[in-house]
């Protein structure tokens, strides 16, 4: 019996005669063969969510099940490329349909023409285990693509070394049951299913981002999850861009989920030119972009996070450290809500479906630090932006995300208004990874790093309390001791927490300089306290300009000349000395 369209309501289409369709199977609907996915099957009809605009679809139009769940093609050529939410290559789509997106275009993710220089790591007669690397090719100048065997078996034949397209057979594998299959550079994977790994390892290494407030105060671990919630205009996107540019992951998956088109264009332009901090090659060479902008079909937006996650896992399985920037998970949750509404499901909190929490959990739990089937170590780190309605963190997406992430970077509207960037509020943010990462920090930076961090945090907390009083009575009548706290905290806020993404030196700061800066600032705090203890007003020390000099460390001291920090430390001593001298 043929399958036909029965009803159309936005992206939700019901099919008749679809009893044999399986849940989550991919279907092609209508004369234009729009891509959709089965989300429900009843005796009478199958419910499909369609990933493209359904205008013009008619009852009676034909539909066809493809017999596999929504899957994407994985192989060399993903990096340096940009895809929509269901992994259709946008550059090729532009060639096919022009600057406005066409419908029903079926393009493979990978360029079928391009040839790759393949090196074989297995020969006829070898035995491969599942996950073993049998071939590799340079995908970009930075990343070597490693092909893993999907299952174990003995190699019957390999092609001679040379240049091949992604679909040419390269190796014949006979498995234990005697079945023979041919392997190519490309493979397929259903996006909603996590790719397997051997086992999960404990969190032990930070993802260094070069952003002081993150690396020092609220670090994120490789294989960890962080949420970045903030109202509009608080700088979520810029923070995500900074992390994508500077973090020390091998591969970045940048997931623009329901966000602005111009932003994706900016990433594309900028990452094509900016050099990767490690290799000096363009950042795009280590980046996969997924752009399902807010005006692209909502069902594809829902799928885009899984597409991104699958690609991330794919590179993790090659032994790379991958970071996924999801901007924004709220848009994804809203897509869930929108589709749920069309399916006439019972809404839970704020109209979101009741399964919001379990879907978020599924997504975040695909992150982790793993041993791959091939025995290598790789990780997927997820940083999810959240756009809470009205900037109110008590809404369901923020609250549910909080249960599955362990680093919480709360962006603050007031800080953004004052153009304090990154506007990460140091009082409400937290990171549960501090303890897991303590051994790493200790080994790399010494014991005193944790002590310095604790002092800075305490200073900021004290200031925050004092500011409540200052708001009521002004700073001028505070006792000198409290003025000291406020002035030193100001140095930390302006000189350390504020970081200028557009300044050449300040945009990325190595962790060693972060520590050095804290040391000098705390040294000033200690020395200034000596003056205050002797009854010398703090204003005397301020007149020397040493406070402003410390605030400018971030611009004045180049990242590779940390010895200059000693000069500033000497400058602190000299300033304090001169004040002491004058007040003797």
């Amino acid at each position, binding site marked *: 019996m043929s399958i036909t369209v029965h009803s*159309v309501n936005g992206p939700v289409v019901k099919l008749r005669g679809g009893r044999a369709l399986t849940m989550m199977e991919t279907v092609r609907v209508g004369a234009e063969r729009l891509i959709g996915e089965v989300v429900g099957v009843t005796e009478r009809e199958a419910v499909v969510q369609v990933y493209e605009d359904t205008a*013009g679809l008619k009852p009676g139009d034909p539909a066809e099940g493809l017999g596999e769940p929504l899957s994407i093609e994985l192989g060399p050529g993903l990096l340096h490329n940009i895809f929509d939410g269901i992994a259709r290559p946008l550059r090729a*789509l532009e060639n096919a349909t022009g*600057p*406005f997106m066409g419908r029903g275009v079926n393009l493979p993710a990978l360029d079928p023409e391009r040839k790759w220089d393949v090196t074989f790591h297995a020969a006829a007669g070898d035995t491969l285990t599942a996950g073993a690397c049998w071939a590799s090719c340079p995908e970009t100048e930075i990343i070597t693509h490693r092909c893993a065997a999907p299952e174990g078996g003995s190699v019957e034949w390999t092609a001679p070394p040379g240049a091949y397209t992604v679909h040419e057979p390269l190796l014949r594998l006979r498995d234990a049951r005697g079945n023979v299959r041919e392997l190519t550079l490309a493979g397929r994977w259903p996006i909603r299913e996590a790719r397997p790994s051997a086992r999960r390892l404990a969190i032990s290494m930070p993802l260094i981002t070069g952003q002081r407030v993150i690396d020092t105060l609220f670090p994120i671990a490789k294989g960890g999850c962080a949420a970045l919630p903030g109202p509009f205009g608080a700088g979520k996107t810029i923070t995500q861009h900074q992390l994508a540019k500077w973090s020390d992951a091998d591969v970045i998956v940048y997931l623009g989920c329901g966000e602005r*088109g111009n932003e994706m*264009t900016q990433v594309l332009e900028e990452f094509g030119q900016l050099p990767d901090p490690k290799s000096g090659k363009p950042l795009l060479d280590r980046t996969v972009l997924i752009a399902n902008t807010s005006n692209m079909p909502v069902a594809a937006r829902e799928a885009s996070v899984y597409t991104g996650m699958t690609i991330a896992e794919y590179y993790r399985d090659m032994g790379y450290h991958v970071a996924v920037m999801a901007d924004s998970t709220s848009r994804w949750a809203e897509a869930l809500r929108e589709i*749920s509404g069309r399916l006439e499901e019972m809404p839970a909190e704020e109209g979101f479906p009741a399964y919001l929490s379990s879907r978020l959990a599924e997504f975040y739990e695909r992150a982790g630090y793993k041993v791959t089937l091939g025995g290598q170590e790789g990780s997927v780190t997820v940083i999810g932006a959240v*756009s809470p309605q009205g900037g109110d963190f008590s809404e369901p997406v923020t609250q549910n995300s909080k249960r599955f992430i362990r680093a919480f970077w709360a962006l603050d509207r007031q800080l953004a*208004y004052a153009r304090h960037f990154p506007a990460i509020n140091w009082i409400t943010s937290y990171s549960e990874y501090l303890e897991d990462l303590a051994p790493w920090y200790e080994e790399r930076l010494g014991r005193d790093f944790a002590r310095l961090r604790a002092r800075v945090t305490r200073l900021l907390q004290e200031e925050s309390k004092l500011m409540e009083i200052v708001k009521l009575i002004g700073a001028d009548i505070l006792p000198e001791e409290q003025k000291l706290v406020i002035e030193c905290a100001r140095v930390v806020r302006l000189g350390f927490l504020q970081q200028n993404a557009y300044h050449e030196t300040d945009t990325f700061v190595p962790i060693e300089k972060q520590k050095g800066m804290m040391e000098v600032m705390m040294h000033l705090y200690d020395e200034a306290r000596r003056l205050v203890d002797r009854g010398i007003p703090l204003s005397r020390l301020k007149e020397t300009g040493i406070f402003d000099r410390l605030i400018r460390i971030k611009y004045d001291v180049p990242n590779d000349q940390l010895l200059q920090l000693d000069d500033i430390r000497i400058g602190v001593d000299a300033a304090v000395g001169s004040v002491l001298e004058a007040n003797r």
Partner: protein
Amino acid sequence: MRMEYLGLSEIRGPLVVLDGVENAGYEEMCELTLADGERRLGRVILLEGTRAVVQLFSGTRGLSLENVRTRFSGAPMEIPLSREMLGRVFSGAGRPVDGLGELYPEERRNINGSAINPVSRLYPRSCILTGISAIDGMSTLICGQKLPIFSGAGLRHNEVAAQIVRQAKTAGDDESEFAVVFAAMGVKNDTADFFRRNFEESGAIQRVVMFMNMASDPIIERVLTPRCALTAAEYLAFTCGFHVLVIMTDMSSYCEALREFSSSKGEIPSRKGYPSYLYSDLASLYERAGMLRGMGGSVTQVPILTMPNDDITHPIPDLTGFITEGQIVLDRELDQAGVYPPIAVLPSLSRLMKDGIGKGYTREDHPILANQLFSSYARVQEVRNLAGVIGEDELGETDKKYMEFGRLLEEHVIRQSPGENRTIDQTLALGWQALGVLPREELDRVEETLLRKYYHEDGAAALRGDL
């Protein structure tokens, strides 16, 4: 020959239901003819087997289950497009209402448009100077940007929008001409008249296309108005090469129309009764701003929305802010203090500004100056709060200077007359003059070299001089 269907099965608010329909497509247009020959347009919004739910653009008054004949057009809603649209006035559904006859179309396009491929976009970098200091100096409008004005009932957003239209020009030596597409959604006749008069007086009317849906017009037409306007804008920009400025007012009426429409369909409501797809729906409008690689022209949007109860966290401004590239926020306090334009500079923001100003675009000191003004003015707010508690006389010396700075900024930089068209140099000079009142060491955002060049302690005196 297309089939005609006699009668209806059901009439429900603006919706009618037909049974036994064959071969109608989703979102297809249809025409209903009443017994007296009156014709009404409708669109298919739900299909279930042979049952079609049609939404009528001009209401269902006078319809019965029997006196109607329906004919399906076989195509989604399209409007005729031509360069001749400039200077014309259309209804919210795109029909000419200025008595000048039908348009001779060069092309017809689906009003829903399609999403621009992010790869095909050109990242906007050239700024549009509006001659308004608060915008040019601190929240610069960029060609291809979508920058809404968040206003409240009774604030002077219409004057601000009209001034932008009168004065807008590109900063560089770009030769492309400006065109304006004006979409009125549920506005009062006075407001429409205000804009029409304004365009006529300034001579801009010859390059304005107007789409008018008045407050008394049917709400379904209101849902189409911005789509018609943006289709016209895209045509003028990417086919004819104009820099098109799209003014859409009032987005709040649009959203309310959408809510009314959604509830008549019996959809499950989300926040404050708005449909759950409000974000996607707004995005499908706002995202039609931009520039394309290899094609001249641009679509820049300045939607105006009145925040219900001045609440910026209300779903309409909230979702808008998440989609648009910044916002210009009008402030009631400034308005009451008689400051025009009453632009609250702190919550205002232009996300694209950073790439379109500074050296090579406006002036080298522009980004730093804007940054410093923001940060100092933020401090002013803190000091004012404090002054409210302890009194201005009790403030410290520096804090008093901040109070003064705040006054100078509002009175001399933000305030200007609706007819005043300031150059960017004038705007920047005023900004530096206001900063002159603050001690040099308070300017923590400015590099030494720029300070030496632009900072003058006597600048403030110059400002005060013309009090």
